[in-house]
């Protein structure tokens, strides 16, 4: 009798742990890597400060903005996104009136986070349709033995 109770309790315990593990799997929201690019944005041009590969989630950048980045392999676009590093929106609300407007950013450190793609060779940045920046990306983080 006691043995049966013990086995039943053990079964319940197992079910609890199975449930826990399945929830743990469900919580894996950021199980990928991403390229992290630190750039100096200055009057429409970009300069590389650092590039690395990090663990975690990277955003999708699907908006309709002035600048576009593309991860490229042999002139084939692997992924792309848009951003606007030039405009800072400022907003206040006093006595029912909004104020603040926008400031055009002349110089700012910006950070591009792009989902990692092992086949990516280059990163290109376009202002509208004009290419304004290009770097090799395959050596980011210097963890790869990929030879080009």
């Amino acid at each position, binding site marked *: 009798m*006691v043995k049966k109770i013990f086995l039943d309790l053990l079964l319940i315990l197992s079910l609890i742990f199975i449930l826990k*593990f399945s929830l743990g799997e469900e919580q894996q929201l*950021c*199980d990928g890597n991403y390229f992290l690019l630190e750039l100096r944005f200055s009057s429409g041009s970009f300069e590389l400060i650092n590039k690395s590969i990090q663990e975690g989630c990277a955003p999708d950048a699907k908006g309709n903005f002035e600048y576009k980045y593309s991860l490229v392999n042999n002139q084939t676009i692997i992924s792309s996104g848009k951003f606007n590093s030039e405009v800072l929106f400022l907003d206040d609300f006093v006595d029912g009136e909004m104020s*603040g407007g926008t400031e055009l950013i002349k110089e700012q450190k910006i950070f591009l986070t792009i989902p990692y793609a092992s086949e990516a060779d280059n990163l290109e940045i376009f202002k*509208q349709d004009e290419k304004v920046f290009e770097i090799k990306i395959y050596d980011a983080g210097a963890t790869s033995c990929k030879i080009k």
Partner: protein
Amino acid sequence: MEYKYLFLGGAIILIVVGVFVFLYDPSIFYSGKESPSCEKIFYSGNSDEKVDVVFFTRGVGKNKIQKYIDSLLGFEPFDKQKDNFNFFYLDEKIDCNIKYSALFCYSLDLIQKSSGCPNDFIVVVSDESDGIRSSAYMNVISINDKLPISVFPHEFGHIFANLADEYIPAKIPFGSKNCAKNCKEFGEIVGCFQECSESDFFRSSENSIMRTLNSQSYFEFNQKIISEELEKW
């Protein structure tokens, strides 16, 4: 007989420990790579197919986040697309600056910490003094909690749909569609009002949320722009 009680006692202890672990320490068996502090506030499903927004707070209770979410999701067309959104909270310390009299939280540290949650858009809500503006830059919104809650839908309009301010003076960002040089650009949508970022540009509604935080709507033309953006997700 003693063995029977020993078995029973052991099993009960195991059950108690198991339940305790299950309820109070979800990180013990955690095997994902995101920060254990990434908390789902409003979750609709797979992040690859959703608009993911992650919140941080500074001196503001976590419970306040729900009010910001409710505010955004109360605006058309978001109200009909709630299941396209995920909202998360990250319990991390964030440093912000003041830039042009506005809260400005965009930094390498914020971007790296955000990677602990799905983060298409990042929102920092901070308890600041009166007179400190809110801001939006890249995909980061920095909110002074002293402003009305509706500042969130306003700032989200900027970074999600590239909507320009409809009050003056401001500048119209490249590609922005809600401020037009002439009324014909609004097509069949009724309504055309002078002043939209610039005094010689026009807006499609008198008082949308992009003009005043007292508004409860983006209004028809802006809703169409937002809906087009939502289609991409």
